[in-house]
């Protein structure tokens, strides 16, 4: 019994993380009918921001040597949380602006610029690998020059790209962005695993004979606060209402005078910031190694959670995430080898039994 409750608590905590990621999937699906497969990689970036903030950028203290620095570390951890959210939100906006928007509205000159530099990345990385660290400056200069040189080529290619409403094109683009982030991550951060040291005072909490780690509670509380904030934004604020209007009918939303591009960017920022918060918390509190493929598994599982709850349905994503976490944790406690299969079995079952998802509705048009 105790063990069951313990696994339940683990499940709810993992589920909260899945829910945070799934919300981003579902909101973007709502406004664009697009599965943003790069979303799991935004979660990875959140973890890396956490890693760099905890080890280099911010003056965290080692608690085993300075136990009195606990308060300072807690404050810094809150700063790191917001930093991860902010950087991921910006990344979300960049992804939307340069990958998905040109597909909707056509390529502009700024897009050619941007992609020229992205195309130059592998080249400069190659140059970088050939040179010693002393020549980092030269390596950067080469990147800028090559990127600039590639710009006209990009502009030329972009003339051939017509705006498209094809779902397949959008999906391929999403996978492409995901690959850029993962392999870009390997290039920039290196493939070696990184660990965030223990930054918060840890305590074993014992309640009615059930033991669990205090950091699990932190994850749960932060996730709950973030989701409550999201709920408030979506239900009661102007951009939130605009988001729901676009989700329901983008043309009708335009007729209201809603700047749909801006609200879509806002949606990406919102979803990405939640994923970033999740990435940081998991990396900081569960001692999982941080690598550029950090977001792959959780991203896939959160995607399944979003489908489970009903793609485009916000409460559904939260519910789907929780169910997913709990089922996974309970199954894994008995049959550990089935842990990663659970998600896909759930996916198959939901697609067979209720393709619209648990809370998804197939609304009929009224005459």
């Amino acid at each position, binding site marked *: 019994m105790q063990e069951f409750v313990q696994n339940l608590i683990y499940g709810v905590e993992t589920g909260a993380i899945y829910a945070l990621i799934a919300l981003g999937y579902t909101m973007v699906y709502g406004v664009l009918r697009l599965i943003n497969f790069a979303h799991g990689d935004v979660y990875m970036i959140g973890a890396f921001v956490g890693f760099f903030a905890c080890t280099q950028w911010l003056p965290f203290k080692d608690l085993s040597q300075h136990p009195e620095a606990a308060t300072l570390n807690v404050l810094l951890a809150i700063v790191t949380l917001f930093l991860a959210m902010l950087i991921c939100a910006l990344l979300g906006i960049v992804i939307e602006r340069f990958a998905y928007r040109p597909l909707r509205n056509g390529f502009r000159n700024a897009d050619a610029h941007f992609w020229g530099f992205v195309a130059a990345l592998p080249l400069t990385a190659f140059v970088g690998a050939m040179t010693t660290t002393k020549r980092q400056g030269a390596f950067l200069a080469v990147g800028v020059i090559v990127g600039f040189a590639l710009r006209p080529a990009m502009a030329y290619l972009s003339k051939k790209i017509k705006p498209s409403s094809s779902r397949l094109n959008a999906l391929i683009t999403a996978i492409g962005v995901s690959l850029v982030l993962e392999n870009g991550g390997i290039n920039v951060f290196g493939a070696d695993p990184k660990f965030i040291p223990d930054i918060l005072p840890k305590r074993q909490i014992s309640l009615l004979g059930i033991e669990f780690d205090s950091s699990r509670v932190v994850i749960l509380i932060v996730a709950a606060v973030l989701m409550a904030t999201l709920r408030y934004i979506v239900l009661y604020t102007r951009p939130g*209402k605009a988001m*729901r*209007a676009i989700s*329901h009918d983008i*043309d*009708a939303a335009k007729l*209201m005078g809603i*700047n749909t591009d801006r609200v879509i960017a806002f949606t990406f920022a919102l979803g990405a910031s939640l994923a970033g918060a999740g990435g940081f918390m998991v990396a900081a509190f569960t001692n999982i190694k941080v690598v550029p493929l950090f977001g792959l598994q959780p991203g896939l599982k959160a995607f399944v959670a979003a489908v489970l709850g009903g793609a485009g349905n916000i409460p559904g994503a939260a519910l789907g995430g929780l169910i997913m976490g709990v089922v996974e944790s309970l199954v894994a406690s008995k049959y550990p080898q089935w842990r990663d299969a659970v998600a896909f079995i759930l996916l198959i079952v939901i697609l067979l039994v209720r393709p619209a998802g648990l809370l998804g509705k197939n609304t009929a*048009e*009224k005459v």
Partner: protein
Amino acid sequence: MLVIQDLHVYYGAIRALDGISLTVNEGEIVTMIGANGAGKSTTIRTISVLVRPRSGAAMFEGKALHTLPAHEIVTLGVSQSPEGRRVFANMSVRENLELGAYVHHKKKAQIQEDMDKAFALFPRLKERENQSAGTLSGGEQQMLAIGRALMSRPRLLLLDEPSLGLAPFLVQTIFQIIQDINKTGVTILLVEQNANQALRVAHRGYVLETGRVVLADTAQNLLSNDSVRQAYLGE
């Protein structure tokens, strides 16, 4: 006020408009009639920049609309009640009306005033203020779509088949309300398949066939025109 010049619009390879020209003067009710697929909706979707023309232009007070993003059209004073209502079914009546005033979000007093006006025009909506729009009847949704379009304080109101699928007594009411709205100084471009009713309330009318204007005249003349009577009035 609105001048449409030689508008050509395509959906992919499908030609929807083949050189439409028309004008709407301030204060008028102008109607566009024509069979299904003639290009009426496409014309007003082009005015609202939901589609962009391959050539030609819709000019509102001298501005070429297709050079602007869709959301700026509302700011200029042009709003649309689209075909099939397109209300936000998952939101309440009040939220729908508030979204109609999206571009005026800072003017709280104005929004309340306009909402009261909309409720005065459509008392049924007042009774259902907090009900979700998806649960309204077709007629009530139509009222909501028109009320919502008025919330942006348009000077030109585009109405796409407001009588579609409504019970006969409601059709009368809707056309009466269209005239009332016009009397408050709002210019109206009315798309209708119910040519008889539309021509009775309009000042002028255009007849569309396969993406072209085939007839343009005062509403009275069109009502007594033999070919119109045969093709659209079922006589």
